[in-house]
């Protein structure tokens, strides 16, 4: 047990401890779950580099372009700051897009994490606005890109032109535009940080999803050190990837026209935004009507917001949804296609391909309400379900144990059902086989051993009972069963059996039989000539049931294994 400092119990530190250190996390998270913390890292990088860049940048129409060149050439480390900030934005979007697609594949948006998803979409919107207004306005491509996108606001009926004039601070993109864009560009990252904290708080309400998409309450481990280390691996890999762009290809993701000062008299042949806006830009251009294009962009984000609420599937992870899995890959292909179309000229055949791809994008969201029900219907009508119906005895809770006893008459000689417990009684000779069957058989799968309880009946000749408490991680009922091996004189081998079943047996366990016992019950057994105690009791207490005295000895596995 790691010793905790008392500082972790103080008000603020205890919150940090509960959410970042001792936070229960599903044990089966893959590296796809590292992108969340990576996004946080990207935000920190952007804020730090941005603050230092702002110390040298001049948001004036006559000086902005030159101030950036001043940063690049004269400020010590200015080139590094500038390239880190510019490429950091691209990295931020790469990480966030991968994070979003991970959520789509594994159903992280599904109930009860709707709020987490919606807050994530809000963060994405804020990021898009921040990146757009921070793109700069006094470079050829950024000037014309800003002109095109801000003039889209004129599509709004009645007040459109007024809004555009307000955005520009005049009748074209000029000095006023630069100032009123730079100010919120400085502010919004802190708003994003606040939204990210809310996103994390909403996530921690119900806990993280996991690759299987099932309830992971049965098997959680502390965030620190396991996922701290796992995220650190992701951070190092990200740092290498980021460094390649910053040091070896800093302008690959940008546009060369941005090294030309803005010229309102010369329009570039092909106006394109930064790469992370290309899919949405392609959807905008695929509709010839301006208002229609703006509405389509709005529909993209409305679809993202609505996704958790239109989802009808009760299976989360696409690993178990074969149709949705294929649709997911089609969606990803569609988004890549839209990104490519966005940087192509508006001519045949790119227009047609863009229109088809745009329809395909919305098709994914349109079919979501139907897809869950379709998959459920297919499962019901499939041969798999027929097989399950034939083996109904293992599906129905009430007949589960009846069927189990009928299947294993030699191994189970009694069944007792109380309000909260199902107890199967077996002979010690068949204990291992029964536990093995329950663990590995397709229709049982009791794979989690919660605890072992030893019961000592001093008044009986065969004093000992050992109770194995098993659990299965499934929505099916029953999910818990107790296996009781009765009338045992000696229990020495069961420890090893239990270890084998939980796959935690090590060579060190043989030494346990020789460890000195300090417990009274154990000493009593020794004085009666009974075999050496076979485990270190963790807790002992006496009770009486039906006039018979019982001693309960709980054992918890403390396993040491090499990593």
């Amino acid at each position, binding site marked *: 047990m790691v010793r905790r400092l008392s500082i972790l119990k103080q008000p603020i530190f205890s919150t940090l401890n509960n959410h970042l250190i001792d936070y229960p996390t599903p044990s089966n998270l893959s590296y796809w779950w590292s992108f969340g913390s990576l996004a946080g890292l990207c935000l920190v990088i952007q804020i730090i580099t941005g603050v230092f860049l702002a110390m040298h940048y001049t948001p004036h129409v006559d000086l902005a372009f030159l101030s950036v060149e001043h940063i690049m050439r004269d400020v010590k480390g200015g080139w590094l700051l500038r390239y880190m900030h510019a490429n950091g934005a691209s990295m931020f979007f790469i990480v966030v897009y991968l994070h979003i697609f991970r959520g789509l594949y594994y159903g992280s948006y599904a109930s009860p994490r709707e709020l987490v998803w919606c807050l994530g979409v809000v963060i994405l919107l804020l990021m898009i606005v921040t990146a757009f207004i921070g793109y700069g306005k006094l470079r050829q491509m950024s000037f014309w890109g800003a002109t095109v996108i801000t003039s889209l606001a004129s599509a709004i009926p009645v007040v459109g032109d007024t809004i555009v004039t307000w955005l520009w601070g005049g009748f074209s993109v000029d000095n006023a535009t630069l100032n009123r864009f730079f100010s919120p560009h400085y502010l919004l990252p802190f708003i994003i940080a606040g939204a990210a904290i809310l996103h994390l708080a909403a996530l921690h309400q119900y806990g993280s999803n996991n690759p299987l998409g099932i309830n992971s309450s049965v098997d959680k481990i502390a965030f620190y050190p396991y996922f701290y280390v796992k995220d650190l691996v992701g951070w190092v890999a990200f740092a290498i990837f980021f460094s390649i762009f910053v040091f070896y290809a800093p302008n690959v993701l940008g546009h060369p026209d941005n090294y030309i000062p803005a010229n309102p008299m010369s329009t570039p042949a092909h106006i394109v935004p930064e790469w992370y806006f290309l899919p949405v830009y392609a959807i905008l251009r695929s509709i010839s009507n301006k208002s229609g294009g703006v509405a389509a962009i709005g529909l993209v984000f409305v679809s993202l917001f609505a996704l958790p609420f239109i989802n009808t599937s009760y299976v989360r992870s696409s690993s178990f949804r074969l149709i949705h899995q294929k649709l997911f*890959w089609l969606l990803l292909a569609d988004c890549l296609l839209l990104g490519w179309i966005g940087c192509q000229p508006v001519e045949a055949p790119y227009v047609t391909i863009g229109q088809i791809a745009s329809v395909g994008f919305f098709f994914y969201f349109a079919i979501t309400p139907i897809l869950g029900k379709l998959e459920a219907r297919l499962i019901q009508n499939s041969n798999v379900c027929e097989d399950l119906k034939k083996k109904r005895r293992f599906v129905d809770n009430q007949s589960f144990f009846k069927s189990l006893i009928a299947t294993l008459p030699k191994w189970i000689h009694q069944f007792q059902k109380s309000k909260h417990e199902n107890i199967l009684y077996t002979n010690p000779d068949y204990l291992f086989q029964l536990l093995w069957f329950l663990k590995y058989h397709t229709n049982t799968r009791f794979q989690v051993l919660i605890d072992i309880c030893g019961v000592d009946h001093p008044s009986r000749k065969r004093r000992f009972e050992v109770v194995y408490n098993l659990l299965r991680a499934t929505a099916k009922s029953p999910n818990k069963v107790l296996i009781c091996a009765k009338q045992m004189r000696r229990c020495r081998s069961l420890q090893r059996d239990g270890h084998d079943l939980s796959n935690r047996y090590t060579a060190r366990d043989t030494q346990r039989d020789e460890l000195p016992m300090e417990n009274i019950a154990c000493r009593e057994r020794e004085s009666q000539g009974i075999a050496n105690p076979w485990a270190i009791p963790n807790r002992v207490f006496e009770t009486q049931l039906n006039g018979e005295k019982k001693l309960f000895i709980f054992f918890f596995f403390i396993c040491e294994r090499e990593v």
Partner: protein
Amino acid sequence: MGKTPVRLKEVSYSLSPIHQHAMRGLLKDFSYKSGKRIFDNWVSALFLLVPVYGSYWYSEHYREVEKLHHRD
């Protein structure tokens, strides 16, 4: 709080991680595991790659046909 306390293996700095078998099993059967992963997911890979490459191929083909259109 963790599922089980895990004793980390001691690291000796006089030996390389390879000699100490620090991450045993990481690259074990790597070719088999990679091949299995590809074999299990080839259908998904098709759904991803075919639309992208197919559209690119179609656009290049269209432009070639358009270039040669004057010969008709």
